[in-house]
């Protein structure tokens, strides 16, 4: 057991930290066109800086430093973390050549078209349909909770190509140019007034058959790679929660032993999570697949994130917080819902790790 970093990793951390200190700027939120373009420019600059994120440990170092430097929201994650690995696993050489470079240099921004109003946790319930006409598919339907749906260049979507097939079958994984005729994003305003997500409506959108990733009607298998990549991505940095707790510690009444005790409970939970992420990182660094254990990790960080903000609100009250704090508060509340609710994750842990009967 050795939890130290190599001197090379140490130099990398110093280089990243130095670059971020000199370059991080405060950008307008990416929920407007102006803000989105500012974030795109930032992503290009970041890509050009060329931090060599070849292994999971360096990537984790980068993300920790990025977080501590208060770096801007990353609008490229759907492309780099989800679409790129999916393309590498299932795309043709032509598809990889067409899309990978523009993902890596941030010149084209991707969004994800999985969720639908009637298919939240139950992805196999999607209803968006694509009917083949010659060398094109004609797409009709609706996606929801599409990040940056109003501004992204491309969307990868699950569409139903065989309406007769049962649930997981008859689904196809399709790359759709958001600038096509008939694609209409409508921004979703969230309960805190924030924008960013969109509903995306597809009306007779024509998509070349060449944009199918994997085989027609085999999209569920392709999507499993996407979801797997999402899961295999290193967990949310623990540094984030310790930072949130440092902020909380400044806001509570330090003469109130009960309040201090509540923060200490969260501190213990955050440290446990920190050690858990180190263990996950170490497994990934050793070439192990995390697989279904990703559900354990998701439960760990999402429940911790909620607790940090629930207890935080209870200890400090609703009256004294910045807009950014509230954004984080509501985002924490959503953490136990998006990317698979806590209920679904517990089912997975019970059935697939502990082997309980369905």
């Amino acid at each position, binding site marked *: *057991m*050795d*939890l*130290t*970093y190599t001197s090379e*990793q140490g130099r990398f951390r110093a280089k990243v930290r130095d670059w971020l200190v000199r370059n991080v700027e405060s950008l307008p939120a990416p929920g407007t066109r102006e803000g989105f373009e500012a974030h795109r420019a930032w992503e290009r600059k970041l890509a050009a800086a060329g931090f060599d994120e070849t292994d999971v*440990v360096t990537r984790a170092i980068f993300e920790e430093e990025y977080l501590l430097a208060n770096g801007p929201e990353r609008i490229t994650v759907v492309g780099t973390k989800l679409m790129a690995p999916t393309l590498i696993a299932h795309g043709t050489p032509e598809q990889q050549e067409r899309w990978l470079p523009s993902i890596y240099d941030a010149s084209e921004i991707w969004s994800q078209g999985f969720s639908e109003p009637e298919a939240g946790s139950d992805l196999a319930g999607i209803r968006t349909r694509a009917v083949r006409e010659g060398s094109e598919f004609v797409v009709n339907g609706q996606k929801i909770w599409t990040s940056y749906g109003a501004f992204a260049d491309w969307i990868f979507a699950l569409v139903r190509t065989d309406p007769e097939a049962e649930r997981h079958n008859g689904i196809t994984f399709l790359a759709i140019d958001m600038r096509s005729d008939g694609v209409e994003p409508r921004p979703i305003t969230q309960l805190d007034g924030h924008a960013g997500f969109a509903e995306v409506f597809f009306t007779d959108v024509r998509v070349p058959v060449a944009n199918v990733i994997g085989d027609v009607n085999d999209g569920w298998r392709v999507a499993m790679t996407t979801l797997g990549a999402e899961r295999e991505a290193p967990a949310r940095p623990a540094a984030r929660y*310790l930072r949130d*707790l*440092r902020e909380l*510690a400044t806001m509570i009444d*330090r003469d109130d*032993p009960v309040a*201090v*005790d509540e*923060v*200490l*409970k969260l*501190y*213990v*939970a955050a*440290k*446990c*999570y920190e*050690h*858990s992420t*180190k*263990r996950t*990182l*170490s*497994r990934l*660094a*050793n070439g192990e697949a995390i697989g279904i*254990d990703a559900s*354990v990790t998701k*439960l*760990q960080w999402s*429940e911790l994130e909620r607790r940090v903000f629930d207890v935080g609100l209870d200890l400090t009250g609703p009256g004294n917080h910045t807009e950014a704090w509230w954004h984080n508060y509501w985002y924490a509340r959503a953490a136990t819902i998006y990317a698979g609710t806590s*209920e679904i*994750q*517990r*089912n997975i*842990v*019970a*059935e697939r*790790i*502990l*082997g*309980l*009967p*369905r």
Partner: protein
Amino acid sequence: MNFDFDDTQYALRDLARELFAKESPPSRVREIRDGKPVDRRVWKTMAEAGICGITVPEAFGGAGGTELDLTLVYEEAGRIALPEPLLELTGVAAPIIASHGTDVQKERWLPAIASGDADADVRIDGEDVVIGDDRIAGAFRDAYARAFSGTASLLNGVSMRLVEMTTEYVKDRHQFGKPVGSFQAVKHKLASMHVAIASSRPAAWYASYAVANELADASIAACVAKIAANDTNELCDGDALQCHGGIGFTWEHDLHLWLKRGMELRDSFGRSHELRRNLAAVHTLEELL
């Protein structure tokens, strides 16, 4: 970055698991809880297998290992509710004497611990550690870190066992025409137990690493590990019994052996609210965060 044990440590775990299963089955744990004195035979067998001397320097007949070599053995000892004084003698006394003891004390205790002949109570008394009638001055901080760290791993082992027993039971037990384990309420309890262990176990492993390497945060990490292991065990204790239902309340069933062992270990060296109070008394939140 390698947060894992090495092959030797895993081999030691396997050896301990096999030895404990053979030498200390639930029937023995039950007899001892029933009042039968702890026979020395198992402890001697452990000594012969090299377990008692894991932390005893080689010069005194041990393996010269560290807290990290003990961690997985602790978990196995917890899983089997082992009554032997592994924590007290091998986990605390041996390394404390090796690092803080006089030459006389080393000669007196270390070979005897490794050989399984030592038979003495170990306790922390103020700033000292007391072994039998012998006193090691000023060693309390190191002793607490080792006691916290070791008890945390013992407790995690108990919790692991509770999950194993409960999982097995709810797969078997049928009500309303299907296994109890197919009800979502039961699934979610077991999933939460599993997740809790997945959180408290790395904390205990890190504590062992910090203690073994004498890191600056060893005391704090060990305290955090003990709190986490306490809380995980309390959760597992509650839901294991709930999922067992009536049968778990019978003397005949083994479940209570682990419930009671967990209770004792949660109490050993401090319950969670006491440990947090002590943390807050010694450190500011800024120091911790």
